[in-house]
């Protein structure tokens, strides 16, 4: 928590100091109010007080109240400023940090967790700042101030106040200790409820097909019952809180009066008056003491949640970045070449290597393809080029320069990367295709049109209502998977890269579109180098070089024809998709 708050700027600290002094002042004014109140009460009760006296005291009291109001409003303004500023800053810090992450880090946290960390967790901290800070300052100040007013005045009455405070603190702590662990459980059960409901929805066809509706409801009800049980315990416990607090406060008040009366009876005349005024002081300030302890326990209730959140935020902010940018920005003697020299890769915490001793070189204008079963490492291999991961051992060279030496921007300018699942951003078709920065000017509309045409998207885009200006919804939900994939490919084309990297980017396309797209692309980008990961033999059948991967090892390299003869694994894959006859015809 403290670590996170070290992000407070000097201005923020200044605001905090201002808040503290304003709170102290407003507490001072607030505690003056009962004094004026009793003064007015006395004036009203005494026969012969003049209107003037009442007006003066009343005026003082209103002045105090106005002063306190102004202070509190200022505190409100400053804390809202502080919390909004701080949350904005933290959100930005997290966002910037995540942008600098590599895939390894993203996978470590998971995307959805990173999103909650940037939004929900920050909101928690924001809540702590805006509600907690004034409370955190006010409670002890009020407690101390009120204690000062009553301290040394009466042992007996102090004892009653102390008993009240102890009872309240103990009850609150008990309630918190009952409720807190259950809150954690509720979070888990809510996740579970979500899970069961999600299952019921995603499996709706299966459930209907098996007439298993009752079964699904039973599963849901089980979690629902469990959740309800815990909810009930928590709510019942909380229902105890208010009446107990009221009870303690009221009886403390009454206790002070009764005890005071007993003391008065046994005291001398002068003593009596003293005791009575003590009684009045105790009954109002004792209440303040209790109230401030109540506030403190309230902080204890929101603190743990904020603490968890700040821990989660810190985890992101202090996470090491595995892929660090180099500095090379200059000209290279080669262009369009990629070379792997004895590259091996494993995840930082894993024992087993995903890639073992891979070496190959692609020349300008060549097409190289990678094939293998799931988990053979082909996607990982291709991701090493744009440095989404870094090789554990060995080196990767682009245009003759080690990728680690490149300024990341410079490296990316040479590459057109198309991921497995197409990514669409909110905005127009044109904006999506012209996305990013390649060190040159933004692609013109003409260029965008051309790219879409090559990517076989011309027809469906021009069929859309606003053509190239059509809006793409968040996540690209208003176009189909195949359409997204084509736009994603057009995005790479519009970039004019030296090297295309297709990470299984054709799987969402049907055979026909797939074939046509690759034909057109080849025509359009004669000089560009292509690296293709594919599942379908048809997609890679004509590549200049095919690398067959099996469990991270290169088990074959060559053309389709060569591999059919020489590579068992390749043959097996090919046969699982096409018959022998079909393969020979190809």
């Amino acid at each position: 928590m403290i670590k996170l708050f070290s992000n407070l700027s000097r201005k923020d600290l200044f605001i905090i100091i201002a808040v503290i002094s304003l709170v102290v002042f407003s507490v001072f004014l607030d505690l003056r109010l009962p004094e004026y109140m009793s003064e007015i009460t006395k004036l009203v009760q005494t026969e012969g007080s003049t209107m003037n006296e009442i007006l003066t005291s009343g005026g003082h009291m209103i002045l105090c109240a106005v002063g306190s109001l102004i202070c509190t409003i200022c505190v409100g303004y400053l804390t809202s400023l502080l919390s909004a500023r701080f949350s904005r800053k933290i959100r930005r810090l997290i966002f910037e940090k995540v942008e600098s992450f590599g895939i390894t880090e993203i996978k470590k946290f998971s995307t959805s967790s990173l999103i909650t960390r940037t939004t929900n967790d920050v909101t928690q901290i924001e809540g702590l700042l805006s509600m907690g800070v004034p409370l955190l300052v006010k409670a002890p100040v009020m407690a101390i101030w009120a204690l000062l007013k009553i301290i040394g005045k009466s042992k007996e009455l102090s004892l009653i106040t102390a008993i009240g405070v102890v009872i309240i603190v103990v009850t609150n702590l008990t309630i918190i200790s009952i409720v807190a662990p259950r809150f954690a459980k509720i979070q888990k059960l809510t996740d579970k409820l979500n899970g069961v409901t999600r299952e019921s929805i995603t499996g709706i066809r299966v459930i209907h097909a098996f007439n298993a509706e009752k079964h699904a409801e039973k599963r849901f009800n089980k979690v629902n019952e469990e959740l309800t049980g815990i909810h009930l315990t928590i709510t019942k416990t909380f229902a105890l809180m208010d009446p107990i607090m009221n009870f303690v406060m009221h009886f403390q008040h009454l206790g002070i009066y009764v005890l005071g009366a007993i003391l008065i009876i046994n005291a001398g005349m002068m003593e009596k008056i003293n005791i009575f005024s003590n009684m009045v002081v105790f009954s109002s300030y004792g209440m303040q003491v209790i109230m401030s302890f109540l506030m403190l326990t309230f902080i204890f209730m929101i603190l743990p949640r904020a603490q968890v959140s700040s821990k989660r935020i810190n985890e992101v902010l202090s996470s090491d970045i595995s892929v660090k940018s180099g500095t090379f920005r200059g000209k290279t003697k080669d262009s369009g070449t990629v070379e792997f020299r004895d590259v091996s890769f494993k995840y930082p915490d894993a024992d087993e290597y995903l890639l073992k001793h891979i070496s190959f070189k692609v020349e300008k204008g060549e097409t190289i393809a990678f094939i293998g079963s799931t988990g053979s490492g082909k996607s990982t291999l291709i991701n090493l080029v744009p440095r989404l991961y870094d090789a554990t051992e060995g080196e990767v060279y682009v245009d003759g320069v080690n990728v680690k030496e490149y300024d990341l921007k410079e490296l990316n300018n040479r590459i057109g990367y198309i991921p497995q699942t197409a990514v669409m951003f909110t905005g127009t078709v044109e904006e999506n295709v012209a996305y990013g920065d390649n060190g040159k000017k933004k692609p013109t509309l003409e260029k965008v049109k051309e790219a879409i045409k090559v990517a076989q998207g011309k027809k469906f885009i021009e069929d859309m209502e606003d053509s190239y200006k059509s809006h793409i919804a968040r996540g690209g939900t208003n176009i189909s998977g195949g359409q997204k994939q084509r736009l994603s490919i057009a995005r790479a084309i519009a970039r004019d890269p030296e090297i295309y990297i297709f990470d299984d980017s054709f799987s969402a396309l049907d055979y026909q579109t797939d074939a046509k797209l690759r034909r057109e692309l080849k025509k359009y980008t004669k000089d560009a180098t292509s690296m293709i990961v594919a599942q379908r033999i048809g997609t890679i059948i004509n590549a200049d070089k095919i690398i067959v991967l099996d469990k991270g090892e290169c088990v074959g390299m060559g053309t389709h024809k060569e591999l059919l003869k020489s590579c068992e694994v390749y043959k097996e894959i090919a046969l699982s998709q096409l018959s022998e006859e079909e393969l020979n015809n190809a």
Partner: protein
Amino acid sequence: MPRDRAPEKVKDLKGTLLRLFKNLNKWRYMMIVAAILAMIAAMLSTIAPNKLADVTDVITEGLKPNTENIKKVSEKIYGNILINSAGKEYIILDFNDLPYEKKIELLDPITIDGVDISEDDQIKYISIASTMKEDEMSEDLLIKLDEMPNSIKKVIEPKLDMNELKYRAIILGIIYLLNSLFGLCEGLLMAYVGIGYSKNLRKGISKKINKLPLKYFDNHETGDVLSRVTNDVDTIGINMSDNITSLITNVTLFLGSIIMMFVTNWIMAFTAIAASIIGFIISFILLKKSQKYFVERQKQLGDLNGHIEEIFSGHNVVKAYNGEEEALKEFDRINNNLYNCNRKSQFLSGIMQPIMHFIGNFGYVAVCVVGSLLVMNNMTTFGTIVAFMIYVRLFTNPLSRIAQALTTMQSIAAAGERVFEFMDEEEVSDESHMKEKINKKKAIGNIEFKNVKFGYDENKTIIKDFSANVKAGQKIAIVGPTGAGKTTMVNLLMKFYEINDGDILIDGKSIKELSRENIHDLFIMVLQDTWLFEGTIRDNLKFNRSGVTDEKIWDICKTVGVDHFIKTLPGGLDSMVGDNDSISSGQKQLLTIARGMIEDEPFLILDEATSNVDTRTEELVQKAMDKLTVGRTSFIIAHRLSTIKNADLILVMNEGNIVEQGTHEELLKKNGFYSKLYNSQFQQ
């Protein structure tokens, strides 16, 4: 814990709230009891200050010296002096200056309230009393009283009526005790109501999910339904019970204090209300204003969430295309908007309480001033003022609570509206009246499509006029590029969607006359998305069927070829199937096939597994699927054309339509879409 939810715009606030209350009918007795308890507790709270004032009165009464006795003492002493000095030559100018003997002469012993006061004591009294000034009372008197001789002290000392105090304190104690006790009972009752209510709402939603047509889920996101089940129901459940009691309590307090005020003194009642009204207008304006920012804040938060989600999940593209700066710029824009809304909404809502606090103080002073004016003109008494001071507090506090409760009501209504919207979705037609039934044991296995017309959208027919006759045991393949609508056929066969025109006959009986339950009973369905629920492998294979022995399960696992794999798992059949475990998608596919085979049914719908399975598992899956089709009328959605060449009928689909139908050879000869599709796998 109360959720920090901004009030949302509600379309039909009154209707939704009424409906929410109507649904609470089940708990009406509990609620009535709780309401009565809350009202009594509130009334007790209105009485308590009066009773506390009584206790205070007894104590203050116990502080005042017995002035009557002081008068009596003075009268008697000075009366004696006057009588005894009669005829004496000296005039008593200053009694204290007289020699002791003379003093004694002038005094006689007196008795007041049975206490004898000796001459010596009287001398002391006179000497102390002479230092008192005319109008000097109270404190100085008290100090001097301490010096008085014991006998006089005894007579004029303040007497605290302990019996009276005991009596008053016990009454007040009982009031406090009952107040807390009633509050507690009411809180517990409402806990049952609130929690029970949300439980029922959830249950209703879960039931509803199974009654909705599949169309609903095609058009709505899962996350949306989920958020209705959790967030919205929670918002209702948690706030509803709190809010209702808060409203009851505070309305009672509010009305009670107004009535008490007007009964006591109408001028001062108006003063108190007028003084508060200004404040209420201010806070009402603030509330309105802050609401606007809260709505805006929620919207900005949503935007930010969307942007972050987009950038984080498209992280690889953002990086590879150097899009970081662009993303950060957009992020900063939204983040700044959010900052502004945050600041304003928090500020405005944060100053509500201090303002209400101030109104309380302001009302207090106003009442004092006006009250004193009235007292001076003899229009009221001091007691009234004191009572009003308490009423002002009782009056302002509940109003701010009521205002708060009303805002919460808005978010409850917003959540309620979303839940009801879901509950009101049109359900699948009722089929309980259908008498036709096909016994699956006796089913033959023929299916006939007769001029079937269908479109997801009424105006857009995608299956125009499809007819085919499928004989028992035949194999029908459905092929076509991705997104061609292959699942449409499944949807129609399983009666997930109703056909617009034409008919489908199973063993000569129209599916329009058969209940869904009956149709589902006839089909084994294995889908491409390998849906398994979180639970053991055994539970997943048994699913909703009872009386399935382990023996039978192992038998089928052997047939499918998944028995070896299950045996390698540490828990065997008891191993858990979850989201992130070691069971690969291919193995999951095998499990769903096994699940389908547990019960023998005459028809089969099979959606082939696609690319994400490695080649070796794929072969296993293929083999298992082949076994499934034996002896059943099967519909196979094919992704690999090589596997369906021997099908009895191939339906070729494109863009939702059935464009061609026939056997493999027939279709190749046609040289149409199918042959193009078939040949495209070999082209570059």
